[in-house]
């Protein structure tokens, strides 16, 4: 069959769908090779660090500009937009954290969490191959094998990034547990709640609390990671439809049309996912830190 041979020649030139996706799901780490071990503390995902720091600094810069120019008089549109954001975060923080002093730290934390995660999630809106293809060009012109020019542009689709943030939130929770309840008070709570203040129940209480902290932290990080990873993967699958172009024939036109329709639909839906996941991460951060302020 004609189309079959054409597909075969195409495959010989470009990557197979499997190779394409595998390439797009590989991080650029300091070795330049794909990480094979489940955990390897010698590796750093350079792309994740680069884009997350870049976007974080961008967010801080924009917010800092707004803060530096903020007046109590009539605000401009930019200032008003930032104020809406700040007001939203401050309202949520007020509802969940009842300590005025803690809010002075936790509300800014929630603000930067929201803005930063929103920006990192929004990297999904860039054309899937835009930055990786530019990187491939740079990598090849530097004399390296372009097949190893890995690049992932959505930092929140990296479990290291999301778990890093959720672990940071856990550290903040532990800090406030000790700060509000005192080391002794918190230790007592760990072995006396939730089942009751009896010596025989202490191990169960403690195990329960450890599991609770673990579950909160893991689900916090995994939720964001899972959503963004799945979103990215679906963009890749959609991109495969257009990548199956074999020339001016009916199946190619249909697939290309499907690519446009599905890509548009998923991108529109993803606007919701991007904002919602950022908001959920922020809210859960506030909820967990709020819980650290309350005794069981």
């Amino acid at each position, binding site marked *: 069959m004609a189309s079959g041979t054409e597909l075969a020649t195409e495959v010989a030139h470009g990557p197979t769908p499997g190779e394409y996706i595998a390439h797009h799901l590989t991080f650029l*780490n300091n070795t330049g090779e794909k*990480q*094979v*071990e*489940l*955990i*390897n*503390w*010698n*590796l*750093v*995902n350079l792309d*994740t*660090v680069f884009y*997350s*720091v870049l976007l*974080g600094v961008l*967010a*801080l810069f924009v*917010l*800092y500009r*707004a*803060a*530096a120019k*903020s*007046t*109590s*008089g009539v*605000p401009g549109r930019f*200032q008003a937009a*930032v*104020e809406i954001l*700040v*007001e939203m975060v*401050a309202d949520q923080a007020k509802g969940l954290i009842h300590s005025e002093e803690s809010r*002075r*730290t936790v*509300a*800014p*934390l929630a*603000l*930067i969490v929201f803005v*930063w995660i929103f920006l990192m999630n929004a990297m999904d809106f860039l054309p899937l191959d835009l930055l990786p293809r530019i990187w491939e060009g740079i990598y090849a012109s530097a004399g390296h094998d372009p097949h190893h020019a890995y690049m992932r542009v959505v930092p929140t689709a*990296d*479990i*290291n*990034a999301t*778990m*890093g*943030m959720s*672990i*940071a939130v856990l*550290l903040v929770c532990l800090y406030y547990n000790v700060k509000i309840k005192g080391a002794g008070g918190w230790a007592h709570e760990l072995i006396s709640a939730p089942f009751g203040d009896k010596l025989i129940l202490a191990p169960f209480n403690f195990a329960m609390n450890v599991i609770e902290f673990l579950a909160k932290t893991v689900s916090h990080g995994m939720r964001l*990671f899972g959503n963004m990873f799945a979103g990215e993967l679906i963009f890749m699958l959609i991109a495969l439809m257009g990548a199956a172009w074999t020339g001016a024939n009916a199946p190619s036109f249909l697939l290309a049309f499907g690519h446009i329709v599905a890509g548009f639909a998923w991108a529109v839906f993803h606007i919701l996912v991007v904002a919602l996941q950022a908001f959920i991460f922020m809210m859960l951060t506030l909820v967990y830190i709020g819980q650290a302020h309350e005794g069981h």
Partner: protein
Amino acid sequence: MNLNATLIIQIVVFLTFVWFTKSFVWPPIVKALDERAKKIADGLAAADKAKADLANAEKKSIEELRAARESAAELRSGAEKQAAKLVEDARAEANRIIAAAREAATTEAAAAAQKAKDALRDQVATLAVAGAERILRREINAQVHADLLTNLKQELS
């Protein structure tokens, strides 16, 4: 889903960002928001006060207007009363003057009539004597006949 040192870096980056936001972003914006809220609250309070002041001033002006109207009415009625009294007085004075003038005229007229009557009487006596002289064609001694003439005079009066 491979874990590596990116996680540690991410924790550090995250906490650094939080520190920056807490130190340089959040306080100025919240300060501006709080200040604006206070300004608006003050403005609203001032507006309420101004409204109350206005209401008070209106009430006061109505009161003043009413008092002015009352005193004007009082003045007018006083003036009217006084005018009426003046007219009344003038009328009484005029009547009095007219009556006095009438009385004077009457008295004068009576005096004049009396005078005329007296003069006429004198002349009649003289005429009577002259007539009698002519009738009698003789001299009548005035002294001799004085009594007679006086009698005649009396009779004529």
